């Protein structure tokens, strides 16, 4: 072999150094996670659960380093530990003082209902202006460690007191929006990621495989017209490389695009106009037409996303004179939401998508699979949530909540005292409608 020299065995050197470092880091991480688990205050048990999982997993890795982990795996184990260490920040930031504590429990209940029992959520702020979801940590740790013969997952199950039916996710929200409950309607999109991940796992890969050959052929024709420069050894493979890059870029855009759009669809289904309102307010900060490319992390243009959510709650944007919808207290809100339709009417985003061969093919894929994917993902919701949220069907309850807000009472109950608890969806819709009502009277309201 050319790499190691007879006088200095680089592989042996690395093995010694890395083994010692991995052991030290695994031990340190385990202790740190244990300290956070035992000393911090959290609203729900979930942050402690993740801390325990990280602590016990790292401790077992530390025990295995000396004798059992093969040299070939040390570098990857080191990377695994580095990633697990990053996950501790989710735990640390979920302390009571950091979170909208009054919302965390009801939000977690709704998220659990949508994602299935046994699912746990950490809800924490992030400094970046973004909502996101990460996880399932336990499933991914298992996926990596289950094929490591030197590691016992059973011991993790015992020591961290976690079963295979449990899932642990972290939902993040922008720190500066901690008290802005209305924008948290975007959590519906985030929980959508859990369902959509199932669709991606079960369906996307198979559909992609079927479509890839045709996509490849289309790129091949153009690449062969002006092949990349290459020496004699790799002439054909340089062409293949170019096609491979384009094909993979198409897959990334298609996968990212359909994922985000499906999550928007779930958000619109769960929260109706509140989801559209939150998306509109969020999107107003950014370019509506920025095409899906690496600089925008391949996300669909905001205009495209708004168009899809408008479709999800179109019924609530129409007048239903026969039932008196929208009533006066909802009219400014519905009027404001109708601006989304005007935004969606422009096709400037689609023109940009169609002008690029990669995004063009990716969005052909998305269009082809959209209806069946959307049906399949909504079908994963439990029966209680299978019907889309319709403001036009619940407006009487929402109006009664608006009246409570006007009286400076929490919009948490309907039908008078003691009444029945309001749903999170109704509360958020009432909040948005109240906001629209106030801005209608005074455009500077709330600033």
């Amino acid at each position, binding site marked *: 072999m050319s790499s190691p020299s007879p006088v200095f065995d680089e592989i042996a050197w690395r093995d010694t150094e890395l083994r010692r470092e991995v052991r030290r880091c695994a031990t340190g991480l385990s202790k740190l996670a244990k300290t956070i688990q035992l000393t911090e205050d959290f609203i729900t048990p979930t942050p402690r659960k993740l801390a325990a999982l990280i602590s016990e997993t790292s401790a077992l890795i530390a025990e295995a380093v000396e004798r059992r982990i093969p040299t070939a795996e040390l570098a990857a184990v080191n990377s695994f530990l580095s990633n697990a260490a990053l996950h501790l920040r989710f735990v640390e930031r979920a302390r009571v003082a950091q979170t909208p504590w009054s919302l965390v429990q009801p939000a977690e209940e709704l998220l659990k209902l949508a994602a299935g029992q046994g699912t746990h959520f950490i809800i924490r702020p992030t400094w*970046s202006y973004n909502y996101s979801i990460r996880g399932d940590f336990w499933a991914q740790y298992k996926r990596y460690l289950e094929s490591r013969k030197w590691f016992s997952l059973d011991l993790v199950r015992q020591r961290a007191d976690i079963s295979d039916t449990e899932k642990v996710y972290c939902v993040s929200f922008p720190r500066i929006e901690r008290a802005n409950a209305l924008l948290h309607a975007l959590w519906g999109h985030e929980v959508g990621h859990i369902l959509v991940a199932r669709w991606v796992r079960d369906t996307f890969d198979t559909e992609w495989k079927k479509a890839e050959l045709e996509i490849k052929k289309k790129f091949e024709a153009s690449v062969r017209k002006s092949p990349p420069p290459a020496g004699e050894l790799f002439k054909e493979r340089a062409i293949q490389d170019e096609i491979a890059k384009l094909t993979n870029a198409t897959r990334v855009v298609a996968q990212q695009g359909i994922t985000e759009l499906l999550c928007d669809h779930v958000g619109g289904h769960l929260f109706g106009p509140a989801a559209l309102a939150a998306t509109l307010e969020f999107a107003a900060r950014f370019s509506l037409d920025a095409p899906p490319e690496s600089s925008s992390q391949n996300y669909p243009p905001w205009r495209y996303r708004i168009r899809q959510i408008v479709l999800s709650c179109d019924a609530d944007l129409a007048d239903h004179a026969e039932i008196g919808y929208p009533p006066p207290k909802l009219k400014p809100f519905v009027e404001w939401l109708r601006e989304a339709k005007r935004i969606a009417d422009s096709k400037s985003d689609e023109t940009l998508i169609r002008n690029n061969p990669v995004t063009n093919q990716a969005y052909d894929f998305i269009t082809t699979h959209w209806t069946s994917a959307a049906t399949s993902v909504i079908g994963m919701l439990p029966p209680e949530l299978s019907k889309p949220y319709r403001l036009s069907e619940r407006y009487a309850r929402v109006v009664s909540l608006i009246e409570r807000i006007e009286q400076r009472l929490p919009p948490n109950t309907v039908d008078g005292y003691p009444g029945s608890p309001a749903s999170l969806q109704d509360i958020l819709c009432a909040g948005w409608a109240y906001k629209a009502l106030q801005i209608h009277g005074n455009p500077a309201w709330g600033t």
Partner: protein
Amino acid sequence: MEDLSSVVSLLTMSSNLEHAAMSLRKILEERELDETETAALKWAGEFLRVVDWGTAVPDAQDVDGHVAVQATSIRPTFYACLFRIGPEFKEAGFTKESEVTSFLGKLYHNLEQPGAPGRGRPKLKATEADLGYQLLHGMAEALLVQVDSNGSPRPYTTDEWDQTPNEFAIASV
């Protein structure tokens, strides 16, 4: 959510490729392979056959959808690593692309059936095993770099950085 999932995929593929690379060394040194090493070699051979468009897969339709997507995502890394050892190919006497293709076919066959060369597929020579080692080891390292940036700081604008291994993006709004 792709971040965690893709990180795990990359770590697993990297480990398997590194196992296979080290096992090639062991074969050359005529040392015994254990079960994990044999499995890693077999996995690497079968997977690279799907990844490398230059060596036709007879039953491409039989490839599992998940493997097909993994192959799509890793293919650019495969070609980059192959091109990177171009000078070593020349040093080993390769002058035509057909020789590279023939070598890669032989490599995959040896990976799939370590120690049992078939008709027309003789055991790898020392220089060939070395090239195979460099390709597999190079890929294993390149995949890890996609996870950990090889220890360099990641570009960030806040206290958070968003992993984008293999151009996967994080799941956010």
